[in-house]
């Protein structure tokens, strides 16, 4: 096994058998996390504001329509963040069923609702002028549930138990797959959920053999899904030859690349985006990275990628120093969620991945996405109040006393200097 991913798995495993320790003393949260998140939100707002005229023209609304709604969404998200960052972390573990139920209900409503002719998919719950994308709630709920589920299995040392662990996970996959990929036809979102689940399960320490088995199964099912749905086949073909069909299915890919490329080194300037004026579809949502690139160029893109890298690094640090397995898995789940979305979105815009209809976290226009991401960031913020090297070391000490023949990581830890203080490596 590649030693590179040992630190996280090892940390979790070491503490798997011991009862949860009480949380360490509450301390100053990670304000860097907040600063990076606010920077990203501001960038998103600036881009959406600057293409307001183009969006208004294209959709027959006032040029303030999008920026107003985005500000409203961010206002609501700030409240969500405030709540999530102040309520006890235990509550999430205790009330995860409520979230799952809400996610199921929202999905059901979205499926039953009449569709909007512009977006003919059963993905939105619409109440007047407000619309709510059910899958965002589902993703959030799945992360919470999985963190709790895996932490429980680890505590009971049942991670390798096929009946107790593997079957519930496969059942969850089937339900999510049918509802989201099948009924809602949202292959992008199911991809994100799959990535999140895989990362969390892998990090929790499930034997790799089982993960590979399940992954193969998913690949087969996914391959079937792609090959049987004509528009997905076309999308795949388009992905393989993005510029071969610029007037047909490749239109958005081609226009996105043109937007990115024509930005050049320093961009056209804030008010100078042309591609937003009807050339590039979804220029406020899925394609916002391309518009940003057109405006700010390579330099701007480096700044944005840097901000995302910084965000992911902060979250990783929080995960490494999280006080217990639940919060650690939660942080890792959130990291997987945000990073997968960012990679899929940007990758599609620069012609490296197929278009999947995935938004760019914190930047893209869209209230539901921002709301749940900010809820998750609030949780991370709260976790960051309880991070500790001491807790980590104390846990390790406890496990050593009890002794465990199965624990290969002990030998590794003793034999390999860099594993002695994994938290310090972040």
């Amino acid at each position, binding site marked *: 096994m*590649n030693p*590179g*991913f040992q630190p*996280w798995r090892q940390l979790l495993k070491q503490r798997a058998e011991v009862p949860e320790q009480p949380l360490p003393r509450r301390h100053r949260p990670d304000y860097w996390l907040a600063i990076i998140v606010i920077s990203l939100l501001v960038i998103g707002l600036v881009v959406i504001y600057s293409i307001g005229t*183009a969006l208004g*023209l294209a959709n*027959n609304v006032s040029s303030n329509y999008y920026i107003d709604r985005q500000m409203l969404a961010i206002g609501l998200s700030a409240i969500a963040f405030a709540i999530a960052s102040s309520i006890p972390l235990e509550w999430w573990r205790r009330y995860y069923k409520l979230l799952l139920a809400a996610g199921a209900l929202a999905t059901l409503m979205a499926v039953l609702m009449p569709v909007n*002719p*512009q977006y003919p998919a059963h993905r939105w719950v619409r109440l007047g002028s407000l619309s709510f994308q059910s899958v965002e709630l589902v993703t959030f709920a799945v992360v919470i549930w999985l963190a709790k589920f895996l932490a429980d299995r680890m505590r009971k040392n049942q991670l390798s138990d096929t009946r107790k662990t593997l079957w519930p996970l496969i059942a969850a996959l089937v339900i999510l797959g049918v509802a989201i990929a099948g009924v809602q036809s949202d292959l992008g979102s199911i991809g994100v959920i799959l990535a999140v689940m895989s*990362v969390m399960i*892998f*990090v929790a320490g499930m034997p790799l053999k089982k993960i590979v088995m399940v992954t193969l199964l998913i690949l087969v099912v996914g391959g079937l899904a792609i090959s049987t749905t004509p528009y997905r086949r076309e999308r795949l073909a388009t992905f393989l030859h993005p510029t071969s069909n610029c007037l047909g299915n490749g239109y958005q890919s081609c*226009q996105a*690349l*043109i*937007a*990115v*490329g*024509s*930005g*050049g*080194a320093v961009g056209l300037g804030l008010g*100078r985006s*042309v*591609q937003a*004026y*009807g*050339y590039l579809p979804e220029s406020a949502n899925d394609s916002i990275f391309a518009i940003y*690139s057109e405006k700010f*160029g*390579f330099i701007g*893109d*480096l700044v944005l*990628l840097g901000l*995302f*890298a910084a965000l*992911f*690094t902060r979250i*990783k640090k929080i995960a490494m120093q999280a006080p217990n397995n639940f919060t650690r898995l939660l942080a890792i789940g959130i990291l997987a969620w945000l*990073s997968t979305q960012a*990679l899929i979105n*940007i*990758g599609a815009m*620069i*012609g*490296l991945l197929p278009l999947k209809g995935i938004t760019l976290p914190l930047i893209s226009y869209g209230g539901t996405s921002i709301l749940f991401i900010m809820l998750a960031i609030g949780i991370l913020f709260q976790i960051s109040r309880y991070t500790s090297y001491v807790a980590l070391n104390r846990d390790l000490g406890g496990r050593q006393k009890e002794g465990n023949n199965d624990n290969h990581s002990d030998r590794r830890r003793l034999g390999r200097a860099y594993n002695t203080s994994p938290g310090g490596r972040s």
Partner: protein
Amino acid sequence: MLYLALMAVMAVFALRLFYVQIIRYGYYHAQALSDQQKEYEIPATRGIIEAHLGNSIVPIVLNQELYTLYADPTLIKDPAQDASNIAKVIGGSANTYKQLLLTKGTRYVILARQLTKSQSSQILGFKYPGIGTQGQDYRTYPDGSLASQTLGFVNASGQGEYGLEQALNTELSGTPGKLKAITDANGVPLAAVPGNIDRAPIPGDNIVTTLNMGIQAQMEQILQAEYKKTNSQGLSAIIMNPDNGQIDAMANYPTYNPANYSAVTNPMLFQNAAVDDPIEPGSTMKTLTTSAALNMGAIQPNESFYDPAHWVIDGFNITDIKQDGGARVQNIASILALSLNTGATWMLMQMSNPGGTTINGKGITAWHNYMVNHFRLGQLTGIQQGYESPGYVPPANLADPSIDLRYANTAFGQGVQITALQLATALSSVLNGGTYYQPTLVDETIKPDGTVVKFQPKVLERNVVKPNIGQELIPLMQNVVLAYLHGGFYFMNFPSNYLVGGKTGTAQVARPTGGYYSNIFNGTYIGFVGQKTPQYVIIVYNIKPNVPGYAGSLGGQPVFADLAHMLINEGYVTH
């Protein structure tokens, strides 16, 4: 490891961005421009056309902005509703519009044309995505079909066709403006970006024609009436000023309505036959033969000669259509009054050899020179009309064994092809003392800045004949009018204080297979009216009239009489 993988992917993204944005910048920049930058031609307003009416100048061709309703089917959200509301505003079938809105594979379909401004703004008021209107100037004609063949029309792509519109297309259309700009996906220019070009169009010139709408209107009524009365296949007439070449009226019947040109099924109706349809004019040509012979000194105005009633030329008999004389002494006046073909042939003999009765190369060459260089037959007059025809004068090829017969025929207007305008202009040049003015329809050109350019008469030939030849020809032609009056053509009775002269022509019609029809004739008439001098030259071509007698006398002459009476009665004859 996962974290490292994540960072590695982000590094790959950064590298990819470096490739796309830095290395391949030129390519994508060019791609963007080819999509975003559009060049537009901004059409210039076409000049209007005006004409004289009494002492004022009135428009006869105007512009009206009408709107084309188009749609981008890919942007249509609710075809059924859009179509039904469009039908409510502009009429038509909602289902037709709906089918158009559902057209696949195009981003531009035209739903309707020629909407009014209010219809256009009503539909734009719906704010349907993907539906728009485009203004376009259309020609309107306050006087309906008046002078239509002389004016021509403007086709759907803005080009003048036929008549003045074609001949003066450049002047009328002006210079289109140019707009080169970065636009949105619908082609609407975005705010000024460096490199945008915005050049305003320069409107076309306004043209004031020489046409006198009063004369023109009455002439068209006369043509219509005579067309029916003589049961002919087509009737053309011109009234022109012999002293400067200006056309006062020019019309043909049947005609068409230029506002509705697209409904015309027979394109022959578009033609201004008076300038683009040459025929063998018949005996009206004798006015020119006489003028040439007089000018050469080959004959004298009061000269007599023995007419044998037929000549044998190259083995063919030349006789007179009018068989009432028989062999006897005739004179120049009777050649014209009785329209003697033998007399016209005799004039050519005098050009060849004074006093003789044969045709030779000298006479043929001289007569050819007069037809082509003095009277400018066989070449374009250069009037501002589309599709003018040069007509045809047979070459003076002396090696041709039947050249004598060929040229004898031309002396009385057979075997040559001459348009009504060519004949009228040639006679004008004789009557005015020998100056060939280029015939013109343009009196003034008004530039976009308001400058008025008055049209100056253009002299194409200064010495057509000597100044006195016109004075000699006038009484000869007056005599023709009197002869017909005394012969029972009472409509040829004009007030004695007016100067009216003329000449009939009954022209044989060539068979396409060779030779001439024995029972089909064209009736032509050329004449003048004035007080002291000829103020108007009038020419009439009546194509294949169905009349009980000579086509010239009964098909051409009555039309001339109506026109001359009209000019006199309406007070147009002033000097």
